[in-house]
């Protein structure tokens, strides 16, 4: 569902999503796993790498907003989005607040 690694030097948590379709159920699972990984990891920055992700449900957007809230403005990024996924963030008005690329 979600694989998170912490880079201790930069205190950055990089999360990948082997489940390419982040529907409601996958997002709920990812949310739980993320909280577990984040807790006590000491991350100041979070990066969600969406390489290969072809679908995101509203639950996934919620997860992004929630994760961004944990580290504060400018310290959360979504990278490697597919064009279609990037458009979802734009339509939702999240592209600028979440540093989507």
């Amino acid at each position, binding site marked *: 569902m979600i694989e998170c690694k912490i880079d201790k030097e930069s205190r950055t948590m990089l999360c990948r999503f082997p489940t390419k379709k982040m529907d409601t159920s996958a997002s709920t699972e990812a949310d739980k796993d993320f909280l577990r990984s984040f807790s006590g990891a000491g991350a100041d920055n979070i990066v969600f790498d969406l390489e290969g992700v072809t679908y995101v449900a509203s639950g996934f957007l919620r997860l992004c907003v929630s994760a961004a809230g944990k580290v504060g403005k400018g310290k959360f990024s979504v990278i490697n*989005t*597919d*064009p*279609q996924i*990037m*458009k979802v963030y*734009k339509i939702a008005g999240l*592209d600028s607040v979440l540093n989507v*690329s």
Partner: protein
Amino acid sequence: MSKFDEKAGELLNNAALASGAFEMFDQEKTDRIVEEVYKAGFNARISLARMACEETGLGVFEHKVIKNVLATQVVYEDIKNEKTAGIISENEHTGITEIAQPLGPVLAVIPVTNPTSTVMFKILISLKTRNPVIISPSPRAAKCCSEAARICYDAALRADAPEYSVQWIEEPAIELTQALMAHRGIAMILATGGPGLVKAAYSSGTPALGVGPGNVPVFIDESADIPYAVRNIILSKTFDNGTICASEQAIVVEKKIADRVKSEFEKQKCYFLSPDETARLEKIAVDPKTGIMSPAIVGQPVAVIATLAGISVPSGTKIIIAEQEGVGAAYPLSGEVLAPVLAFYVREDLKSAIKTCIDLNYLGGLGHTASIYANNDERIKEFAEIINAGRIVVNTPSAQGAVGGLFNDLHPSFTLGCGTWGKNITTENVTAHHLLNIKRICRRRDNLKWSAFPTEKYFDGSLNTDDLLKEFHKNY
């Protein structure tokens, strides 16, 4: 009451008289007027183009002539056979008869960039739909617009059009335009101009057909015929010195074809700016406070722009091109510039290139126009799916392609709807059929399924959706 309110009232009283008289006109009489007006406008295409160039100092004389031709000949050909008066359709099967009614007085707001052509276009579509029209020109184009309106009105009167069916404001003032927009006698505003004007129209409380701003991304796919693509982009971007809002703003290519595209632009007499030259151009092209293009360069030829920027470009340069890294406020040339200036983006791969097109689209051109050069229909569809534009023009000069009638079957128009993305109510090219109230006679044709279905079953809470639908769709 201010003098502007008084003037608005006078214009609207006159327009109301014309509206009343128009009620009596049938299709034949209406079409006679439209034909006479089109011919008069067409005959004046050259003198009006000259006036527009001299008065506004924008654009290219020959291209203004072509715009006038498009606004008269091409628009007329498009609308001449359309039914716009009385019964326009009857369907025995459905029992529905459609009857076209005029809207009432139309306020036509005219931009400085396409003045006489937009005047004639709006007069033709208004008269075709039996709506009196009041022309409110940009103050920078008041004389040529007044002359275009006068020529059309004289022709309309010769064909027995109602008095005051065409009126115009010889001394435009923002206050008068605002008073007209808010006047209860105006039925519709046709607002072509900048975002501020369009917002004013939509905020006035009067129904409005407006346009959004453009920021046209052009994606050149690896499957494209590159020399052909470059030739067409130049044809479009140099047309009237880039004053059409559907003209190309930024070229986006993948790295693997970037060198070929660049050398083709250079071969076809376009000039790539150095970073230092780009910085100089940015200073004079875009107002740093507002992020909006500077009026000083709108519709100007390359030589004038280069002089203003203090840049030396080879003689005969058709377009100046600035390579850009990003999109947004930090990159002033990533926004709309209605002049022969292009931004140029090189991206690592297809995904990044398309994402840049989305960024450009969202920066200020949502709903307007996008362009793609490709010989791969799947790629074209993929691009069109993802870009929010009312018109996605394919292998076509985007300025001439988006306005319609020349390179495709879009309705020829000088008012390009941008949908709700651009705060408009349509994504279509606005034309005569948008200026009608359609009444519908709805004869009784019973829905047989509804008649046969025992409707009391809707009150039986023990039946679920499937049970009810099975019963509803039962073949008796």
